[in-house]
């Protein structure tokens, strides 16, 4: 038994190295084919990574809603002290936490943002009202949060209560749209892989038609004839996926600094990050499977012609 396994293994290794040798013999064609595959695989991977990162951020925002409570400004006697007012709110069971941001703190934050410093210096006085950030205990229950925001707005000393769900909903819709885009690109990628491999294998068969005919004549099984083409399909896809992984991470690297600048304008520490090895592995496996499928289909179509007529 071990002998059979070693024979089987050595036969497969031989085909593997033989196929690698053939790839190296026509380096320009091989590299071009692999790059086409890599680009087809890269596009959905990049979009996937962007959507995935966006989604984790929006999910965080949606799961942890905030109500911004702008208090009446000025030192009117009717207006409560913001800190005391906050303490009072905490007694409401529908409120989990309250955080006070004084006008001075608010201004300082703006000051640190790009492009705001000069505008602020031009102001005669601080226009910002005192702000309470309310963390509702309502969680994801959107309607309850809206009711709570209305209640808060009607309280004495409150100017406006902003619960910006609409903006979040829009963002969620955009993420949905991008997710659909990833699916579409992934399908196009699949079709691209199948077409590229079919064509590559078809050309390989034409180049080796004489060899195939002779192997068939001296008693080679169809599995034997098929094997090098299956390896060619799988190897192209393997290298395509490998290149795609590199290209995706390179693109993400190029996007990283503009994205973090953009994110800082939105007061977010949003980052795209890298393609994880797990995802890269799945993509490689899918690409190789499609490559195998496409080459198998293409060779079988040719093998049908070899049947004795």
């Amino acid at each position, binding site marked *: 038994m071990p002998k059979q396994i070693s024979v089987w293994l050595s*036969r497969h290794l031989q085909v593997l190295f033989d196929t690698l040798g053939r790839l190296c013999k026509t380096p320009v064609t091989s590299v071009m084919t692999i790059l086409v595959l890599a680009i087809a695989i890269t596009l959905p991977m990049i979009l996937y990574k962007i959507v995935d990162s966006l989604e984790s951020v929006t999910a965080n925002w949606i799961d942890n809603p905030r109500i911004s409570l702008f208090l009446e400004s000025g030192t009117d006697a009717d207006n409560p002290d913001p800190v005391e007012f906050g303490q009072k709110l905490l007694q409401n069971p529908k409120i989990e936490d309250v955080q006070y941001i004084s006008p001075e703190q608010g201004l300082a934050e703006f000051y640190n943002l790009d492009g705001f410093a000069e505008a602020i210096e031009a102001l005669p006085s601080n226009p910002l009202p005192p702000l309470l950030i309310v963390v509702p205990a309502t969680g994801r229950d959107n309607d309850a949060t809206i009711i709570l925001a209305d209640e808060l707005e009607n309280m004495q000393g409150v100017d406006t209560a902003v619960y910006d769900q609409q903006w979040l909903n829009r963002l969620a819709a955009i993420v949905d749209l991008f997710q659909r885009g990833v699916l579409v690109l992934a399908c196009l990628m699949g079709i691209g892989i199948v077409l590229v491999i079919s064509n590559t294998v078809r050309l390989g068969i034409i180049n080796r038609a004489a*060899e195939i005919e*002779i192997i068939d*004549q*001296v*008693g*080679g*099984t169809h599995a*034997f004839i098929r094997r090098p083409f299956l390896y060619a399909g799988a190897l192209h896809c393997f290298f395509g996926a490998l290149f795609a992984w590199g290209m995706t991470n390179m693109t993400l690297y190029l996007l990283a600094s503009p994205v973090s600048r953009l994110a800082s304008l939105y007061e977010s520490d949003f980052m795209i990050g890298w393609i994880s090895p797990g995802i890269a592995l799945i993509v490689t496996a899918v690409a190789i499977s499609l490559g195998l499928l496409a080459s198998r289909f293409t060779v079988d179509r040719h093998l049908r012609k070899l049947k004795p*007529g």
Partner: protein
Amino acid sequence: MIRFSQVSKRYPSGHEALSHVSFTLVKGSFTFLTGHSGAGKSTLLKLISLSELATRGQVLVADKNLARLKGNRIAAYRRTIGTVFQEHKLLHDRTVEDNVALPLVVAGTDHSETQRRVRAALDKVGLLNKARRYPITLSGGEQQRVGIARAVVGRPQVILADEPTGNLDPALADEIMQLFLQFNQVDITVLIATHDYRHLERIRCGVLALSDGRLVSGEQDA
């Protein structure tokens, strides 16, 4: 060993290359297949090597009805037949020894055994010193002998040869015929298509003569 009963072969073009051919070749026999160009010699051999299927009638080889074979059985059957092709059909991007090794490689024979048998076969046809050469650097006769080595390396039960001496000088042609006779000594059934009638006079053997797809002389039983 080989039995044709009422075999006809009509090509898709409509041409009937063989009609109602019946004969039997016993195991270990040595037979020449003769006939004018276009008589159907190659067609008859292709029916035995299962490159073509009979349109009508039955072809039995070693008690197997060839029309019934499917898939891997076809490949396995072909490994029991050694064919020398009219146009040598060698792979020009492989060395002589790799060409000869092909039937063993597809059969999954292990490496050392393959080496041994390839050398033995090349020795037999006198090309051992050219094992590492490429077919293109050999003469026509040498290429023909490579084809013969490839046909016998798998120890087939039957050897089919289509005009194996077609473009060789008489001395070389005789040498090659001697080779086939040697193979026949070890009980291999040999069928050779030729229109070189010289051999028919010199060698004691059976003869199947075709004319326009009909068997005009030979064993007509079955």
